[in-house]
């Protein structure tokens, strides 16, 4: 019985040619395009199309297209969903684009489809997907590790390096949020002996919703009176939690920080509920991804210190031990002093 099954399987395998999918190593140099630059078509696939974050990213994409004259565009799924994102990429491959830049919802879920893209000679650049195997390069404004640590450093500063804190993610299924939070927690353990993670609720989910962030924060502060800090990841967590802190009368007693957009946090930064949020400008990230793709299409060799021509992305360094992940110094700390200088 078993043998016959194996026979069938192997017969099927003979007739069917499996698509090469897996971490085959490709030489980035071999992706040099033979077409003239005016015919290049580069797509950037964000996680979704409505989040203010990616709307800002599209500004960079459009800027790049304008600056270089290359047909570059952003095309995202209608909803933040790994399966739907994969479908968009499928369609882009079928259209024969020359390069795909992607901000994966879930890197693991995109491996097969990105593998397919590479096998068809399409340049694949990741952003915020350091664990991605099937890509030529992953460029990060920073390392996930680094960002998580930085958020923690900021939070610790506010909390006076002592007290109880917890972490808050957009969705418990969001990979990078969890990575930042894990890195932050690990860092605190190592560096701030007086800070403790709230054991009962070590990770709170806000369903990527501002109102939920606010409601969860209120619950947390009610249930755990000694809770002093919230380590936020999603850009919606600082404004939501800040509103709760303000309303509960905890200003100065409880703290939050997260990645955040200037405009969404301006009010709270100015009235002191928030001390700082962290940011890398998605516009620049978008611009840099396209610049990276162009470099490869041109056949340029990627080395430490390469310049992606966007602020903070001018001197990229390979992550320790990696030949794929390039990190910039893209993050900016926003405080009440510089919040007005961004214009978004």
């Amino acid at each position, binding site marked *: 019985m078993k043998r016959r099954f194996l026979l069938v399987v192997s017969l099927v395998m003979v007739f069917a040619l499996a698509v090469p999918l897996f971490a085959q190593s490709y030489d980035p140099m071999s992706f040099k395009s033979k077409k003239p630059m005016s015919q290049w078509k580069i797509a950037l696939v964000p996680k979704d199309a409505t989040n203010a974050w990616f709307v800002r990213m599209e500004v960079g994409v459009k800027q790049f297209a304008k600056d270089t004259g290359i047909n570059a565009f952003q095309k995202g799924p209608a909803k933040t969903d790994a399966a739907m994102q994969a479908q968009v990429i499928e369609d882009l491959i079928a259209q024969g684009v020359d390069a795909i830049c992607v901000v994966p919802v879930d890197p693991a879920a995109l491996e097969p489809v990105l593998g397919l893209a590479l096998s068809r000679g399409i340049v694949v650049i990741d952003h915020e997907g350091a664990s991605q195997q099937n890509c030529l390069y992953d460029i990060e404004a920073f390392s996930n590790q680094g960002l998580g640590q930085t958020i923690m450093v900021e939070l610790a500063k506010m909390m006076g390096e002592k007290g109880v804190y917890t972490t808050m993610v957009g969705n418990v299924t969001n990979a990078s949020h969890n990575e930042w939070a894990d890195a932050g927690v690990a860092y605190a353990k190592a560096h701030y002996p007086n800070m403790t993670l709230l054991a009962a609720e070590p990770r709170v989910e806000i369903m990527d919703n501002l109102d939920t962030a606010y409601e969860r924060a209120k619950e947390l502060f*009610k249930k755990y009176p000694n809770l002093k800090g919230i380590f936020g990841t999603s850009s919606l967590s600082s404004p939501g939690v800040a509103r709760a802190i303000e309303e509960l009368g905890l200003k100065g007693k409880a703290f939050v920080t997260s990645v955040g957009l200037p405009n969404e946090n301006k009010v709270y930064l100015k009235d002191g509920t928030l001390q700082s949020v962290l940011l890398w400008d998605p516009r620049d990230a978008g611009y840099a991804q396209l610049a990276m793709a162009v470099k490869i299409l041109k056949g340029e060799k990627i080395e430490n210190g390469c310049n992606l021509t966007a602020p903070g992305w001018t001197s990229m360094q390979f992550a320790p031990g990696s030949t794929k992940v390039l990190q910039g110094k893209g993050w900016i700390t926003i405080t009440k002093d510089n919040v007005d200088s961004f214009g978004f």
Partner: protein
Amino acid sequence: MISLRRITKRSEPYVLAAIILLSLLIQVRSGQFFSGNNLVDLARSLIVPALFSVGCMMVIVSGGIDVSFPAIASLAMYVTDKLLLASNYSGNVILAYAISAGLGLLMGALNGFLIGFLRLPTLVVTLGTSSLYTGLMFGAFSASASDVPPSIAKHGKEILFTATNPTMGLTSNMPSQILILIAVLILAFFLLRYTMLGRGIYAIGGDETAAERAGFNVRGIKMFLYCFVGVLAGITGIARISMMSYADPSTMLGMEMTVIAAVVLGGTRVTGGMGTLTGTILGVALMTILSNSLILIGIPTYWTRVFTGAVIIIGTGVTAHQTISTRRRRAQSQKAAA
């Protein structure tokens, strides 16, 4: 005697009992339920789903179902928000409510036309318009989260009173939007109970043909109903963004199912004809307390969905079981009488 018998047949007491039990559980687990500021917080969280539920209940009573109200609310508030931002409007927030309600009215009118005049099935129509409206919002208006104009931001800061938790000193503000909810509830109560229009909604839900024969303008009533839901959705949209001072076009999407579940939990008959505002508000209260107390109860984040899923199933299961046993009892008592 008779009235007591009638009361036990209704589902409001059961929902109320469930709320009390849940409250006690939360109180025991956290010592926080019956504090002033927690109750204010709950009231605040209740505003948006409760506003939605009023319209939703009326539609279900009329024998229909509407899944498009979150889409209407989102599109109406988003367009309003953008219009006011673009025109640098800084006057009274009433204008924002008016524009949004007007847009809601238009969108509701499309539902009303398709359902009332063309007699198309309500679920399919509202699924279709819901898809249409969200698509328009994100596609044609390329909506993304945005600031709110000053008038709305100011409105969001208007508070009625502040409740303080004496033991912990935590304070919570009662937002002024609760007045809108109260006004809508009073209006809906009056409408449903004391106007022919309202009785017509119940009549249609009971027997549409009979309503037509009795001289109710069935098309007109349905048109009104879906327009009313649209207006209500438009108002809810502004209430929502003003409370957060932030216009996120996707914040309300996906609420339809929980609102419908709350309405049904509150004893509104899925097949139409029966439903009370009291029951609806109790149903919404139960759902709101539940979703806002999982941390207070101490349910780990990873298991919250399991808990809510179980409560929906058990809650509706009890209601379903209870209506069936009432029907059985009724059949038996009829037999006994005969």
